[in-house]
């Protein structure tokens, strides 16, 4: 079955530090991958997406992600974290046959002052 795995349930970083959230996928063909962010009590906001082309994709709020087929990874990065980035981050993929999204288990990011 197609799936995405987020190995880190909870990550804490200091404000201003760099961030990398891990996501691994299992799928034979090129997957359609996304990162969503969910702030407390809020809906889900799309940060960035990948489905073809350049393997380094830029998103909103200064985030980027790199698709690495050799490592089956789609890690999310940000060079300098802001306190407002504290949220839950979901790596997701879309089953091309159904268009619905399948979510990873999420990584909760805490930002220390």
């Amino acid at each position: 079955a197609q799936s995405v795995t987020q190995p880190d349930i909870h990550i804490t970083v200091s404000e201003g530090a760099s961030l990398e959230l891990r996501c691994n996928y299992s799928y034979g063909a090129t997957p359609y991958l996304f990162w969503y962010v969910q702030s407390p009590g809020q809906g889900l906001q799309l940060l960035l997406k990948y489905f073809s082309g350049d393997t380094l994709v830029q998103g909103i709020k200064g985030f980027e992600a790199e698709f690495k087929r050799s490592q089956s990874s789609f890690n999310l990065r940000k060079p300098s974290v802001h306190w407002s980035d504290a949220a839950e981050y979901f790596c997701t993929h879309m089953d091309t046959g159904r268009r619905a999204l399948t979510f990873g288990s999420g990584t909760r990011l805490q930002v220390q002052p």
Partner: protein
Amino acid sequence: AAGVIQSPRHLIKEKRETATLKCYPIPRHDTVYWYQQGPGQDPQFLISFYEKMQSDKGSIPDRFSAQQFSDYHSELNMSSLELGDSALYFCASSHFRQEIYNEQFFGPGTRLTVL
């Protein structure tokens, strides 16, 4: 810009009662998706509609039903509620295009609590 609207935002019901959740997609969006997010869990796809027809079905219990109306809004009907139905229910909408990928825009969710 207009966003996806969900109502109500919060709902409290007793076991075995029924609940109806509503979703109003972004104008000109023709596809609606429903997701369920249990406490501390990731969202799970329930069901989707395209042009008022069910287009896909996920892990939706038989006690639940949904439909999309002529104005493209959608309603999720939940009967014989169980404690385990307590969750955040998200609706997302998109505009179908020929390309495979259609970005889904999520609403703020309806938090259902079953007592």
